[in-house]
């Protein structure tokens, strides 16, 4: 009985000789066994390129661009904060008095002492106090945390164009999860 592996992947011959031309029935058997091999043990074909897929390269491009943008914004806003060009909500020299507190107590204390708003700044509330140097840093942090969502949205058209419905669905679900996390709907605290 012919080993299908020899038909699909003929062993290399040390002698320099021409490969035999398969008959019609042998060619049909090779095509059948190739399909069967794919079903039984899918994997890269011998000699398949080590090049990344289109969606993977696209993901990498978006990831790199978003990372540089987020880091750049974060560094710029931190300089504005550190130099006092944009005054902070909490004076820098007062920070050691508050950073030992649990997060909720910290937010209540700085709201009471410095911000004097109706409620503590949680969720996306920092967007309302971007005129304060410390909260301005949240722009860069948010950009870095949003990069992954943008990457997934970016590769969706490629996945669906390839009719890769499973990974398209996985990507959509991931976008939903990350958006849920970012939205502030899911909350916790002491």
């Amino acid at each position, binding site marked *: 009985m012919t080993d299908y592996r020899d038909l699909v992947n003929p062993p290399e011959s040390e002698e320099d000789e021409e490969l035999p031309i398969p008959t019609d029935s042998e060619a049909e058997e090779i095509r059948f066994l190739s399909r069967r091999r794919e079903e039984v043990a899918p994997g890269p074909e011998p000699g398949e390129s080590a090049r*990344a897929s289109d969606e993977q390269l696209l993901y990498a491009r978006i*990831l790199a661009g978003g990372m540089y943008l987020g880091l750049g914004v974060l560094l710029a806003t931190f300089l504005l904060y550190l130099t006092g060009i944009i005054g902070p909500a909490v004076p820098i020299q007062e920070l050691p008095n508050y*950073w030992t507190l649990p*997060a909720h107590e910290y937010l209540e204390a700085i709201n009471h002492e410095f911000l004097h708003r109706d409620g503590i700044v949680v969720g996306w509330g920092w967007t309302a106090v971007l005129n304060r140097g410390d909260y301005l*840093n949240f722009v860069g942090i948010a950009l870095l*945390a949003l990069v992954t969502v943008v990457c997934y949205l970016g590769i969706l058209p490629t996945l669906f164009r390839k009719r890769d419905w499973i990974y398209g669905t996985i990507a959509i679900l991931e976008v939903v999860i990350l958006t849920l996390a970012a939205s502030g709907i899911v909350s916790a*605290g002491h």
Partner: protein
Amino acid sequence: MQRLFSFVRIASAPGLLLLMLPQALMGAQEAAATALEAGAATAWWVWPLALFLMTFFMGILAALGGVGGGVLYVPIVSGFFPFHLDFVRGAGLLVALCGALAAGPGFLRMNLASLRLAMPLALIASACAIGGAMVGLALPTSIVQTALGATILGIVLLMITARKSTFPDVPESDRLSSILGIYGVYTEASLGQTVNWKVHRTLPGLLLFIGIGFAAGMFGLGAGWANVPVLNLLMGAPLKISVATSKFLLSITDTSAAWIYLNQGCVIPMMVVPSLLGIMAGSFIGVRILRVAKPTFVRWIVIAMLLFSGAKAITKGLDLPFII
């Protein structure tokens, strides 16, 4: 002999400095506490500067020792700095996230990180990381600190006992990985040839990522310490694929948990930015030292640091005196 001396000096200097730093920090902490009692206040820049220096050396050790910055950051900073654990975890997740964002594009382009391998695992882990973050923020700090210490000691045990398999033997893909098309080809530079790979035990791997994601969210740790053994030893991905995919995975897992901490206000920019700068500068230097340093020796330094920090976290959580 001179080359040997230079090598030992280069390999051991960052580790020994890092070993001495907690002692210095503990001394500074005691001095600061004494100064506070005397009515004087520690200058605001002292701790952010110390944080920058600490994360700089962490970045070097992380690059040399093959661990992520996150697993070092939370236990060490929570044990030896005055910042509350809520802010340390928030900063730790952002530090791990930025490290993953920085490394991810390169690994993806080189096809060392596999998007097809990462996406299903990341879906599970990121969902569970949200749950972990919520639980971690809801529990009393002492419980989280104690659990953190126990987890860190567990990580130490894993690092000591876990084997690594450069090219695991995977006879054939399992049905789930076949359906998902999880396989690939990459160029192994050390051999100068392409390597085909596939995975098996995909379902057990997915189930383990439930716990990995939960722990990452709860403690603010990067999950690389768990990702790599699962990918490499359980699922059979080659070691390089496992390490690179794990690093890339963190960018997804840590994003979901980071948002929970961010939305709860658990982020202080004066902590986050010096930490990010320190870790990235340290990683930059660490990659260059890697050529001459002995990673195994540095790995033992990292294990010692984690042992120290884990014990410190447990004693802090249980309000016991720290003997060392």
